[in-house]
């Protein structure tokens, strides 16, 4: 894999959008990693939860928008309940998802496919939550 | 909505720069104001501080005089109840000034123009917050005309 040099840029408009949507302070984070250590949904994540905040602190939103992490977050609030800095990571994940979904044409769940998914016996709760999480 | 409304008021009183007199006790609030200074916490220059040994030194006359001479707001700040350097001074302040607050309301001075708060020496943040808050409210209310001595021009 080729390494590319990045330039930290905290003035990006997405950073502002994320703070506005989530109302969380990303600079509060000390990078202790307690969120990652306790995350029950970690196995599907390519970027660790604490790294999500670090990348935001460096202004690397693009990497996050392309990651699987933001879709894997179950918003269970385990991280928040243990975070020494009271950073609500699930809100930041939600903000990141919204930034993707609000871009024109982006839809993570196609409604036409729902009957098919139902046939595979996904619990209804999951479908409802999927609508909230994956659809505009 | 409230933001829009306040904008309108400010426009109406174009150029209105409120004057606010703050009586601060030497041990807590004056030190809190010093801390706000050392921490470079911004608050508007409209607030002018008068140092008193204890908030209980503030006579109702001083407050009335300030309003009479054209102040648009008055703040009295002391130590938190129980923390008074002189043991019980701020309890007297609390009683006396709640009476004065009633009187001021009765004679038509808006409640927001007269603020009593407790700010300790370690609460530089709170000092700046209270000052900003009072100023914003007084700004909305516009100049104080009720008690102003007509012979006194600012």
């Amino acid at each position, binding site marked *: 894999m080729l390494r590319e040099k990045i330039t930290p840029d905290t003035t990006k408009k997405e950073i502002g959008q994320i703070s506005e949507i989530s109302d969380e302070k990303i600079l509060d984070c*000390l*990078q*202790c*990693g*307690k969120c*990652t*250590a*306790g*995350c029950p949904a970690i196995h599907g994540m390519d970027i*660790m939860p*604490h*790294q999500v905040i670090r990348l935001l602190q460096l202004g690397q939103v693009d990497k996050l928008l392309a990651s699987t992490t933001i879709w894997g977050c179950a918003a269970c609030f*385990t991280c928040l309940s243990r*975070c*020494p*800095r*009271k950073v609500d990571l699930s809100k930041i994940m939600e903000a990141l998802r919204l930034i993707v979904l609000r871009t024109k044409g982006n839809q993570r769940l196609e409604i036409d496919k729902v009957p098919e998914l139902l046939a595979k016996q996904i619990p209804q709760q999951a479908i409802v939550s999927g609508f909230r999480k994956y659809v505009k | 909505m409230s933001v829009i409304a306040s904008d309108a008021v400010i426009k109406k009183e174009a150029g209105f720069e409120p*004057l606010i*007199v703050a009586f601060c006790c030497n041990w807590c609030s*004056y*030190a809190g*104001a*010093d801390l*706000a*200074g*050392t921490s470079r916490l*911004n*608050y*508007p*220059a409209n607030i*002018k*501080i*008068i*140092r*008193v*040994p*204890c908030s*209980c*030194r503030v*006579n*109702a*006359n*001083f407050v009335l*005089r*300030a309003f009479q*001479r*054209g*102040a648009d707001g008055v703040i009295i700040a002391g130590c938190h109840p129980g*923390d*008074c*350097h*002189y*043991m*019980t001074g701020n309890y*007297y302040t609390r009683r*006396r000034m709640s009476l004065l607050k009633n009187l001021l309301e009765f004679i038509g001075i808006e409640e927001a123009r007269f603020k009593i708060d407790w700010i*300790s*020496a*370690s609460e530089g943040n709170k000092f700046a917050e209270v000052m900003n808050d009072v100023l914003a409210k007084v700004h909305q209310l516009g100049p104080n005309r009720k008690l102003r001595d007509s012979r006194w021009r*600012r």
Partner: protein
Amino acid sequence: MQRVGVFICWCGTNISSTVNIEQVVAALENIPGVVYIKDYQYMCSEIGQNLVKDAIKEQNINRVVVASCSPRMHEATFRKAAAAAGLNPYLVEIANIREHCSWVHKDKEAATQKAISLTRAAVAKAILNEQLIPGEVGVEKRALVIGGGIAGIQTALDIAEAGYQVDLVEKTPSIGGKMAQLDKTFPTLDCSACILTPKMVDLALNSKINLYSYSEVTEVNGFVGNFEVTINQKARSIEMEKCTGCGICLAKCPAKKALSEFEEGLAKRAAIYTPFPQAVPNVPVIDRETCIKFVTGKCGLCAKLCPTGAIDYEQKDQIVNQKYGVIIVATGYDLINLDRFGEYQYLDHPDIITGLEFERLVNAAGPTGGKLVRPSDQKQPKKVVFIQCVGSRDKSERGKAYCSKICCMYTAKHAMLLRDKYPDCEAYVFYIDVRTAGKGFEEFQRRAVENYGVNYIKGMVGKIFPGDNQLQVNGVDALSGELLQLEADLVVLAAATQAKPEADEVARMLSISIDRDRFFTEAHPKLRPVETHCAGIYLAGACQGPKDIPETVAQASAAATKAIGVLSKNKLVNNPCVAKVEQAVCSGCLACIKICPYEAITEQVIEEKTRGKVRLRRVAEVNETLCQGCGGCTVACRPGAIDLKGFSNQQILAEVDAICR
């Protein structure tokens, strides 16, 4: 006629960068009474002070206004300068145009206008200033030290060394505090008891020091030089003079169920106990809640066995009243309660312990005789996980937002001791940041990593799952992003330090202030770190903020020096800004007497001649040595007969007028 000299300080660029000095000078020129204006870069410097002195002598000014930093900073400096030039120091007035103006405003024009306004108010006040001559009051040559940890011990020894009487009040049965519980001390690894116990013995043998152990201060009145203190000596149920400390009672006591406070609950103690063998004083205490004699009335074994008949079940609390010149507060700290940290399972598993409990487990005098074993099965652990910042740097309700300061170092020490004693035992330390600011501290911590092979992991533990035999620790290495799973035998939590729960009460009693973390506040964070805002009361040790032993000892000695400074004076100068009664106006209603918290106002009967007749009339009278100058009475006075010198009604009204112009 008042001739006012105004001195405007630039404070380098601190003031002059936001306030246009020229404009201020120009605005002040037109004020009646102002005859001399001077601005200078550093008014508080010697040259600046000379400007003030010269102007007093040459320009004949008799009122001085200095527009500079806060009066809390340099009022004393300029008063001294004025006094040196022959002017009464209380004719000096300060306008605070730095903390209250240039530092908080960005708009240059607004700041300049405000500076003018504040200086004008100071001039208005200065014109009305009167010469004040402070009174004098005697000093009680005796110091009170509250708290018998290393801070209190050091302070007491230092004051006694200077030749003054010291009373030390300790709440628990023995002095020694937290330091007595520790095993080794960083960064030199010398044994804590070996360096502390000689000091404890010194203190016990020192004829200048009087120790009130198992006692509490219940009331404090008065002021610097003359504090009146009430001490409650709790009933020990043992006569101190008769007890020889033989220890028969401790050994034979049948009630051995109570958890030892000194051993952090890791061992049991008898109902009659001394906290630890080297206790000072070496006199036991009966814990009346667990003693069979006190609970059921049937036992009394200790009284039967005591060879000197020292046991006294009828003993009552004793109240001692004593006067002191100074008070040093050295009440120490506690560890936070870990109940709310569910993920660490501290409450649910005996093998998850705090750092202080670890100290007891490795201490040769501890419950295991210095053999490190797991509390659950008494087996020696093979893998120990240390977790730092448990509750420190934690903004949530569970923890403390500040850094506890000592944990990085003591965790390194623990891991090092562990690896030293049991080289086959692995040590893992989870940390957020390692902070080793201190002499020899960084080298110490690096030694733990490089020489002792302690594994440092930057990251935190998410949760601990107690298993059958071991504790499953799920953590993360934040640097690599790898998830870690460790099977640990013992987990040590570096719990945050916090102020004592009694801090609020102590602060209220002494009328000193506490910060939002309930540590006592020093008078100035940099320049007056051991004084409080209350004259004559000083701080030592961790009651003022988290501290390690060297810092505590340094502060304790500093507090002692400050205390000796007061004790060495025969007379103290009073604050002359006190209330005074215009007796001709006084109606004798005496509403002021009820207001005064210092009982400084008394009733007086004066003779008055009216139309040739002599009449007796009741008026109020202020005792100037007792009055502290709060001014509460001035507002209560119906006829307006009481005024406060230095802050008179006329002066404050003049300030209001000047500001509202």
